[in-house]
C-alpha cells in the first residue's frame, strides 16, 4: 500500500481505523497532507490522494453529499486529531473542484460551491446497476416510484439502497436518455415514477 521511501514515511505510524471499520491509509497521518501544496505537480498528487480517500470513505459509509458547512459528517475524514491537523474548508473546496473536473463529483448548482455530490459511483454505473436489478426482479414494463427504488423492501440489499435523491435523478436521466426508461411526474420527488421498457424492445 505504501512505500517506506524515507524516514518521513516510517514516521506516519499505523493507519487509523475507525469504529465503522473504515481504515485510512497512513498518508492520512502525514502533516503536509492537510496543507494545500502550492507546487502544481505536488498538488495534483495530493488532490488525487484526497479524492481517492474521500470516495472510499463515502462509499464505505454510503454517503453522497459533501457539505462544507456541515463539519460533523466528515469530521473524522478531514480532521486528524492524532496529528492535530485538519483541512481548511477552502482546501476541501479546492479538492472537490479537482474532483468535479475529473467527473468524480458535482457541485450542487444552488449551493455556490458549498455542497457537492460525490460520485463514488458514476450515474452511468448506477444506471447499469439499477436497470439490471429491475430486469432481474421482473419490474420491467411496470412503473416504480423513486421511493421504491431507494427505500423499497425489494432494494434493501442493493447498493443503491438509500441512494441520494440527486444521484437517483441523475441516474434516471441517464436511463431516459438511453431510451431504457421513462419517468413520470409525481406530487413530490419520492412519488416520481419510472417505467423500464423491455430490453431491446
Amino acid at each position, binding site marked *: *500500500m*505504501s*512505500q517506506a*521511501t*524515507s*524516514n*518521513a*514515511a*516510517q*514516521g*506516519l*505510524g499505523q493507519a487509523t481505523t475507525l469504529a465503522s471499520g473504515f481504515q485510512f*491509509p497512513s*498518508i492520512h497521518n*502525514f*502533516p*503536509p*497532507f*492537510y*496543507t494545500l*501544496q*502550492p*507546487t502544481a*505537480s*505536488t498538488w495534483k*498528487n*495530493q488532490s488525487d*490522494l484526497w479524492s*481517492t*480517500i474521500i470516495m472510499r470513505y463515502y462509499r464505505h459509509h454510503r454517503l453522497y453529499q459533501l457539505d462544507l458547512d456541515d463539519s460533523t459528517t466528515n469530521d473524522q475524514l478531514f480532521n486528524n486529531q492524532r496529528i*492535530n*491537523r485538519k483541512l481548511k474548508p477552502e482546501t476541501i473546496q479546492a479538492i472537490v473542484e479537482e474532483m468535479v473536473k475529473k467527473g468524480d463529483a458535482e457541485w450542487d448548482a444552488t449551493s455556490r460551491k458549498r455542497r457537492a455530490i460525490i460520485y463514488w459511483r458514476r450515474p452511468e454505473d448506477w444506471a447499469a446497476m439499477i436497470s439490471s436489478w429491475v430486469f432481474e426482479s421482473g419490474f420491467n414494463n411496470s412503473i416504480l416510484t423513486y421511493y421504491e427504488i431507494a427505500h423499497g423492501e425489494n432494494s434493501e440489499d442493493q447498493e443503491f439502497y438509500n441512494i441520494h435523491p440527486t444521484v437517483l435523478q441523475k441516474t434516471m436521466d441517464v436511463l431516459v436518455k438511453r431510451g431504457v426508461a421513462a419517468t413520470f411526474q409525481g406530487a413530490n420527488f419520492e412519488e416520481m415514477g419510472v417505467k423500464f421498457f423491455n430490453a431491446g424492445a
Partner: protein
Amino acid sequence: MDRWDPIELTSTFRPVLEPQEAIQTTQDQVGLYDGRVKAEDYPNGTVYLTNYRILYIDAKDPVRKSIGLPLRLISGIQHYGGFMSSSPKITLDLYPRSTNSDLQSSTDFISSHGGGGELDPSAMAALTLRTEPSWVCTVCYNSNQGGLAKCTVCGVRKPQTSLETPTTPAADPFHYVESIPTNTTINETSGTTNEQPGIACPACTFHNDPFMIHCEICGTQLQDQDSMVFMLHRQQQHQRSISQLPSALSQPSTSLSTTSAASDTTAGKLSAPGKFMAGMSNFYGGSKPTPEDANSVKLSFRAGGSGSFQTLLKSAMGNKAWKNKPKPRPMETVRNQSSSTTESGSSSPSIQVGGISGIMRTVESNKKVADETLSEAFRDLQGLMDKAAEMVALAEAISNRLSKSSNVNNEETATFKTYLLSMGIAAPVTKDTAGAVFHKELARELVEFILPIVEREGGTMSLMDIYCVFNRARGVELISPKDLYTACELFEVLNLPLRLRKFDSGLLVIQTLARYSDDEVSTAITTRIQNLPPGSGLTAVELASAIQISVALAQEQLLMTEARGLICRDESVEGLRFFDNLFTHWEI
C-alpha cells in the same frame, strides 16, 4: 611606449597598488598615442591616475595590455580640448631619455635604502649629460658627440657600423656588457686596481682605470650612464648582501673600491649581469622612435573627462608623492643602522643587547608602537580615517601571525580571523576617485572582497548581508544600497564570477557563478529532510542554523526545492515546516 611598464593586476582586472599608493581618478574609453601616432596596441581602456603612476588597463585584453607610467617621468602636461570629431587629449611630455627611469629609480633606491653616500649628486649629473659614446666621422674624422645623428663638420650621417669600429671598442654597448662585469669582478676579488688594463677610451683608445669616469687624456666620457647604472646596481646588490649577513660579518662599506670579496660573489655576480643585459637589449634593441615622439605620450579621452583628469594629474604631480614613498624593508634599515652604530662605537643600549633578551626587547618595542597606533587611531573619527591604512596593515599582520602559530585554540583563531577579514578594504573605491566608472570599479572591488566570504557562506549570500559586510569593511566611505545594487547588476557585463539573483519572492542574493546550482542545493536539502527523524519536518530557521545561512535565504532555498516538487509543506500554528514529498510515489 617603451617608458611604460607592465603592471600587476588583480583577479578582477584592477591594478595592484603599491603601499601608500591611492587612486585619484579613473576614466574609461581612453586611447593612447605614442608621440603623435596612435598606439595600435592600446586603443581603448580604462586609465587610473594614482599619486604615483598613470595606469592603462586595456578593455579587451587586460592581461597582456596593461601598462603603467610613473608620474615622475612626466615633465609637462598639455591639454587639447578636442575639435569636431577629434577627442580631447592630454599630452604628457616626458623627461628625455637621459634621465632614464632606471637610473632615476636606482638613485632613488640607494638614497632611500640608507646605504647611500657612494656617489655625490653632481657626479651623477655629470654622468647624465651624455648617454652615448662619441663617434668618429668616416669622412672628416671629426669626433662627434654620441647623440648626434650627423657629423657637425661635414654633415655626413653617423655610420651604422661605427659602433663596431675597432678604434672604439668600449663604445660598443654589447662589449660593455661582457667587459664591465669581468673587469670589475676581477678587480674587486683581487683587491688591487693597477694590474688591470681598465677601460679603453672610445676617442683616444687610452686605457683608463676602470673606475674613471672621464678619460685622463682627452676628457671623453668613458662609461655611458647605463654601465654606471650597472655599477650602481652592483653596489646596491652588494649592500643588500652585506645587510643579509650576520652583523658580526658585516663591515662598513662606503665606497666602490673597498668591497669585500665574499659578499660580492654571493650576490653581485649572480643576478646583476643578467638584469643588466636585459636592460641593455631593451634599450638598444628595436627601432628607436624619434626623440620627439619618444618623449611624449598622448591620452585621448573619447568619453570626456579630460578636464578633471588634467586637474588631478597636475595636483598629483605637484604633490610628488613618490618622493615620500615608504622605504623598502624599513626593519632591515633599522637593523643596518643599529649594527653600524654598534660597530662605530656609539652607544644605543636598547638595541645593543643581543640574544634572547634582545629579541624580546624588540618584540616589546614593536608591541608598544602598535599600541600607540591603536590608541591614536581610536581617539577620534578623523584620526581613525587617517590611520585606516595602518590599521588594516596591522590587522593583516596579526592575521598572518595567527596563521603561523598553530598551537593557538583553533576556534578562537577562526573567529578572530573572520573579524579581521571583515575589516580590511584599505583604499575603497569612491565616487571621487572612480568618477564615471564608479559602479564598474565598485563591482570589481566588491567581487575581490566578497568572493571568499560568499564561498565560505556556501555560495549564496543575501544582498542585505553583503551590504552590511561590505560597508563595515569600507569603514568610512560607505555606499548606498542603490550603488551596491547597480554594481551587482554589472557582474554579468564585466564577466565577474558572481551573479545577482532575484528570487520569486523578491529576495536579492549574490551567488557564485557555477559552483552552487539549484540542483545541488535542492538535492542537498531533500537529502537533509529525508534523513530527519521520522515524523519531523524542517523549518527555514532550522535549516539556516544547520548550514549557517540567513533565514531569508534558507526560506528561499526551501521554496525553490518545493517548487521543484521534491518536498512539500505543512502549514500549521507551529509555522511552516517542510517534509519529504511522499505524495509523488504514494499509491493507495
